């Protein structure tokens, strides 16, 4: 069973992701916005894909506040973790945001909130898992 890490600070959205991914996608799911825990999980090799929020005001790594873009970059710039697919899931959905975020973070994909079609989300995840 693929293991999906959801990085999300909004309690309700986090809950929502967990239910959708577990019950609809049949994935193993971990939801957190704790920076140290995120890095530890990623490095352990036990994560197959990351759903990453962008605004993460309460997330710190080594005492430095990081947002989803920085976290993704850290994953992508480390050779041992670079191959883990990262999908940005954010409510920042103004024109140009997707391109800018992808460019800045080197993430693999982007999905705008609100996510109105859950099947579309599951499909996207499955595609990225396959191509890995």
């Amino acid at each position: 069973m693929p293991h999906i890490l959801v990085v999300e600070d909004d309690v309700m959205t986090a809950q929502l992701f967990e239910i959708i991914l577990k019950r609809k996608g049949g994935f193993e799911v971990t939801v957190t916005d704790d920076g140290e825990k995120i890095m530890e999980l990623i490095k352990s090799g036990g994560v197959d894909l990351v759903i990453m929020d962008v605004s993460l005001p309460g997330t710190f790594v080594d005492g430095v506040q990081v947002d989803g873009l920085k976290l993704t970059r850290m994953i992508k710039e480390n050779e041992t973790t670079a191959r883990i697919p990262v999908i940005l899931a954010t409510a920042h959905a103004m024109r140009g945001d997707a391109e800018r975020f992808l460019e800045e973070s080197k993430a693999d994909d982007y999905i705008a909130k609100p996510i109105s079609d859950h099947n579309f989300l599951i499909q996207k995840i499955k595609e990225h898992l396959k191509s890995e």
Partner: protein
Amino acid sequence: MWESILTKGYWSGEIINKKKNGEFYFAFLSIASVKDELHGVTYYLGIQSDITEKKKIEEQIRYQANLLENVNDAIIAADLNYRITSWNKAAERMYGYKSEEVIGKEISEVVPVEFPNISRDEVRKMILEKGFWKGEAIHYNRFGEKIYVSSSITIVRDSQGNPIGTVGINRDITEQKKAEEKLKLYAEQLEIANAQLQELNKLKSEFLANTSHELRTPLNSIIGFLNLIKEGLYENQEEMLKFVDNALMSAKHLLNIINDILDIAKIEAGKLELNIEDIEVSELLYEVWTLSHVQAEQKKLEYKFIYPEGKVFVKGDRNRLKQILLNLIGNSIKFTHKGGITVKAEVFEEKGFCQFTVSDTGIGIAKEKQAKLFQKFVQADGTTTRKYGGTGLGLAITKGLVELMGGIIDLYSEGEGKGTTVIFTIPLSRISYGEKFEIEQGKIYGDSGLLILAVDDDARFANFLKTFLVKNSFRFAWADNAEDGWNYILKLKPDVLIIDYAIPYKASALIKNGFDLVLKVYDTPEFQDTPVIILTGHPQKVRELLKLSFINFQPNVLEKPIEPNYLLNLLRQYVKEKDEVNILLADDDVNIELYLRKILPDIYKIDYAKNGREAIEKIKVNNYDILLLDLMMPEVNGYDVIRELRLNKLAPELPILVITNFPDPATDEERDLLSKSMGIIVLDKSELNLDPAKLIDLINKQIKTKQK
């Protein structure tokens, strides 16, 4: 000619002679009688030389001299010791010294100079070495005024090429310099305005982005949980209901955000109408406490309310006042993690407002971010990863609401981690004290005197002004809001304005507070000279606004409460100012007129007569408040004028101030003419230069004596 020859035996002179061909020529002719002992005059000897060429050269020299005299550039020639040898008319005008005053003096004694990045000695060295110097400099005239000049100094040589002196041509470029400076100022202002616009534009984009983000987040939960229910992805009835609850909660949050956006849009568009009533402050605070204390307790914060003593009423919109307080308290709770929050209401009766304070021991705000916080779309943490959410509209809405009700709002914080205090004011309601005032808007009280218009929402203060000013020979009118104030200014054309700063206004009002009104007045040519006194409980605020606005006037800013006599003195000053003082100056020295125009304030209108005869003619026709009289004048001198005015009773009452270089009369008759019994004061001209204030003082004294 013959008389001279007969009596003296000779004559010489220039004549115009006629050649045989009819051409005229200039000749120098000497005729002498030749006589012998016996026969007396025997014959006359005439020697004639043609001087036509010489005449031409003379004419040319005169023409050139005339040119030098009439150009607009000051042309100053000097010898090798820089002693002035020639000083043209333009120099007289530019520096205020007559040629005869300066010839023979060292230039530096007469004209103080500042050169940019170079000293006078260095300039002189360059002139000697290179033969010339060219550049811009600052000169000072007789009155110590700065003149910007473009200056070019050249060495003058004799026919053998030996230097014999220098000539300097100085062009007055002060106006040009001032225009340049003005232009520079405008450019700077434009740059600032442009930067502000760009900043505003950036803030709008940020606002849109933030608003979009804030709307999408709750929408995600609403759609998400409803989808879960639709797809049957719940384990039991209980979980389904929880999903419904989650969707509802998010929907409510969304509604709050939308309300905020609508509020700010309405305030912006002037569409937010308030329901103003008298509100009892303690009651209001208690209501706010019941709505907010649970939140504070949940965060384990100390939550303290300090109520005003007794019953206090303010004029405001009850729901909006609650909104303001809840917003500020909500912020405090959000940004405070330990310690507490204090909410306080204090009455400042003399200033006419109740002051509310919400202070906390929270995260505080860096000083540089404080000023911007009340602008809409701005949050202290403006990054995309804001920790505390919100739309960035709360404080902008709060500020808009407070100002609509006629208050001001300010935020203080010693910096990050040091807590925050927000203070706002709301006008007190006087009616609720049971006071009744017999004052009507737009009605003129009093029969005579300057008309004072007060624009102030405080009826009690207006009523006091009415009684006080009418008693002191003023007329008084009142408006309780800025827009009506403007209408009364148009209709009544008051002489002096007393304007409050924070005044309640209708949402649709174009002229909102007192400051808007002041700007409007200064923007309207017909009224821009009307003296304005800004009388406010918030003088700091007003001074800041004055500093920020691009206007170059200084209205009087006075703090409430005002000492009535201070206000009275200020107003009396305007009474004097309104009356012009018409001066007739009789002096053959034009420089005195120029000098007086410079040192006397604008209300002193100067008419000028260049001699005694002109002065007498002018006095026959015009009405003057005072005559400033020189004694030594051609044709009809000062003593003659005094004789005509006093002894011949042309103007026995006209105050006369004699200004003269020769204050000591030569004869007894002159002494009598200058005596105090003639109502004449004598001032030495040298004193005039030393102490201009003395002249103003003397003029005022002379006029006052007359009025008595």
